[in-house]
C-alpha cells in the first residue's frame, strides 16, 4: 500500500491540478480565485463565472450549465445548460490551460452571444468588494 496515496476525493474536482511550486508574489486580482501561481481553471470556477454572467443579465436558467474539460486538450472547456424556453446555453474556453492566469470565455444563449471576454473580472466582481 502506498502511504502517499493520492487524494482522489474530497476536493479533487474543486481544486483541480494543484501543484506546490515556489510562489511568485502577486497582488493581482487572479490571486483571489487562485488562478495565479500554478493554479488552473477548473469546471467549478467556470460554472460559477457562467452563472454570474447569466444571472447578471437576468437570463432565466432552466438547467444550470454543467462544465467539462476536454479529455484531449486540457485548455478546452465547454459548459452546456438551458434557458427558460429551452434555448441552449453554451460556454466555451480555449485558453484554460494550467498556468494561464487570465483565461477567456464565450457564452451564448440560443446562439446569441451574451459575453465574450476575461473570466477573472467576472469572478472578482462576485467575490471581492472594492472599497
Amino acid at each position, binding site marked *: 500500500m502506498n502511504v502517499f*496515496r493520492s487524494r*482522489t476525493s474530497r476536493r479533487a474536482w*474543486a481544486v483541480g491540478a494543484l501543484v506546490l511550486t515556489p510562489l511568485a508574489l502577486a497582488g493581482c486580482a487572479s*490571486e483571489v480565485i487562485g488562478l495565479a501561481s500554478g*493554479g488552473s481553471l477548473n469546471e467549478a470556477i467556470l460554472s460559477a463565472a457562467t452563472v*454570474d454572467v447569466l444571472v447578471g443579465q437576468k437570463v432565466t436558467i432552466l*438547467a*444550470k450549465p454543467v462544465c467539462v474539460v476536454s479529455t484531449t486538450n486540457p485548455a478546452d472547456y465547454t459548459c452546456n445548460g438551458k434557458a427558460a424556453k429551452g434555448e441552449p446555453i453554451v460556454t466555451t474556453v480555449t485558453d484554460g490551460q494550467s498556468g494561464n492566469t487570465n483565461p477567456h470565455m464565450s457564452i451564448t444563449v440560443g446562439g446569441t452571444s451574451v459575453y465574450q471576454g476575461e473570466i477573472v473580472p467576472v469572478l472578482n466582481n462576485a467575490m471581492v*468588494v472594492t472599497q
Partner: protein
Amino acid sequence: MVPTDLLGRALAAPIKPSEAPSTLLQTIRQSQTVNKSYRLLVNAPGEPYLPRLDILGKEPAADRATKRRSLAYLGHFSDIHVIDAQSPGRLEPLIALTAEFIDASRPQDTLTTQVLSQMVSSLNIAKHSSLTGAPMTAMLSTGDNADSRNSTELNWVINIIDGVSVTPNTGKAGVYEGVQVWDEATYVYQPGNPNIDEYGARGFPQIPGMLNAAVSQNVTSVGCPTPWYTTYGNHDTLFMGNIQVQPALQAWAVGSRKAASWPAATSNMLNWWATEGSVFQQFVNQVRTGLGFANGIHDVTPDAGRKLFDQKEFMQAHLASPATPGPVGHGFTQANVDAMQTYWTADLSPYLRVFGLDTCNQVDGADGAIPQDQLDWLVTQLNEAQKANKLAIVMSHHNSYTMENIAAPAIGPSQPLIHADQFVSTLGQYPNMIAWINGHTHSNTITAHPKAGGGGFWEITTASCVDYPQQQQTVEVIDNRDGTLSLFTTVLDHDSPAAWTNGDFSQRGFASLSRELASNSWAFRPMTLMGSVLDRNCELLMPAPFDMKHITDAEVEKAKNAAQARLVAYDQKAVPQ
C-alpha cells in the same frame, strides 16, 4: 418545564417570517489587499433566493407564494472539523511533502471550537424561517465532525452543539505545544513569527499570544435549539480521512512525542507498517537511512483524551449525550451499537422521514461508496416510506462526485460497493425521495438529478466550518399547493464580525479571525468553495411526489406546534453553561 400560559401564548401567536440576519440580507466578501496579497473581509449585499428549475422543467406559477405551507424547516451542518491542534496524532508535516495532504494543517487550526460555537449561535438566530416564520424542526449534520478521529475532538463537537462549554486544550494547561511555534515547521502559519516562511511573504499578520489564548479560552455555546442528527464522515472513520488506523498510531496519539518535520512524520508512518509485519521492513530500513529518523520530533505533554475512537465509541459518545436538545444518540440507538449498524432512520414528523447513511470506506481512501447491504436496507425503507406517503430525505457525508471508492475490507464480510451512478439511479426510483443532503467537498453545491419523463430529486451539498467560506445552511420544505414543492436553501455565516479587530481574542473575535485566515489560505483556493449564486440561496422546485392532500393541514400544524414548543422551552433555559 415551560409554564402553560407562556406556551399557549407562543403557540397561538401569529407566525411571521423572521428578520434575523442571514445571507439573504448580508454576505461577507474579500476586500482589496491590505498587506502584500493578504485581504480582509467586509460585509457585502445580501443574496435573494434564485429559482432552480432543472427538475421542474418549466417556470413555476407566479402566485405560488400566496398559497404555500411550510412542511419542515431544517438546519444542515457538515464538515465541522473540530481540531485538537496539539495532538501527536496529527501529522502536519505531511503538508510539506505533497499537496495531497493539504488538510494536515491550516492557519486556523486552533480556532475550530470558537467557529463551531458561533455557527451554533447563527443557527439559534435563524431558528425561525425568514421565509415563512416556521420553527426549526431539526439540525442534520453530515459528518467529519472530528478532524482526526480524536476522542477529545468528538467530545468538543458534541458538547458545543449540546450547549456545554469547552476549553479547547489538551496536554499542558494554558500552553500551546505544536507546529505553529516550532522553528523547523516552515510550512505552517506561525502567528508569533509569520516571516519564518511564505505566510509572512504573503502578508499574514503577526498576532502574538494568539495560540495560547485560543487553546486556553472557555468556549461557551448557546446550544442547538433543536434535536440534531449525525452521520459518519471519512475523518470520523479514517486517520486524516484517508488511512485505516494502526495500533502504532494509537500509541503516538496519546504519547509524548510530536513530529515537526516531514522526514520524521514519514518515518512515523512507515513505522506503523513495519510493526504490522515484515512485508515492508526492507523498504522501511532503506528509507529510514535516507530520511534521518531522529530529527524533527518534539517532546509534548501527553494526553489520554487524544485516544483515537472507533465506530462503536463514536456511536456510544452520541448515546451518552443528554436528552436535550437530543435525541439521545442523534440518530444512533443502542440497537445500532449492538448490531454495529452504522446507518439509521428517524421520523422528523409524521410525514417526513430521514435516512442517515454511512458512505465511508473503513479501509482506505477519502472517497466513499455504499455497501450493498446498506443499499438493500435503504431500498426497503424507501418502499415503506413511499407506501405511507412520507417524504424522504437521505443524508450522508459523501456526495455524488465523491463516491467511487473501490477499497474493500481486508478481513471480515465483504460487500459489493455501490457507486454514485447506481446510487443516484436507485434514489430516483422513489418520487417521495425529495432531497439528498451531504458534504465532504467543503463547497456550496446544488446538483439536480432529473429523471427522464419528469421529476427527480435535489442534491444539496453544504460548505464546511473549517475552510472558507465557513458556511452552513438551512433547508425548508414548502408545499406550494399547486402540485409542486420548493426546497429553500439559505446559507448561514457564523455569528461573528466580517472584519477581525486586531487584538480581539474574544470567542466571536477568534471565529472572525478564523474566517479571515481561511479566506487567505491560498493553497485551499478558498473562493472556489463558495459555489455560484445558483448553489447558495435558492428555491429548488420539483413536482410534488404525490397528492399533498395526504398530508393534512392538521398534521402540519401539530408538527409545527411541537417544534415551536421545543423552541420556547429552549429559550426559557437559554443561558450559556
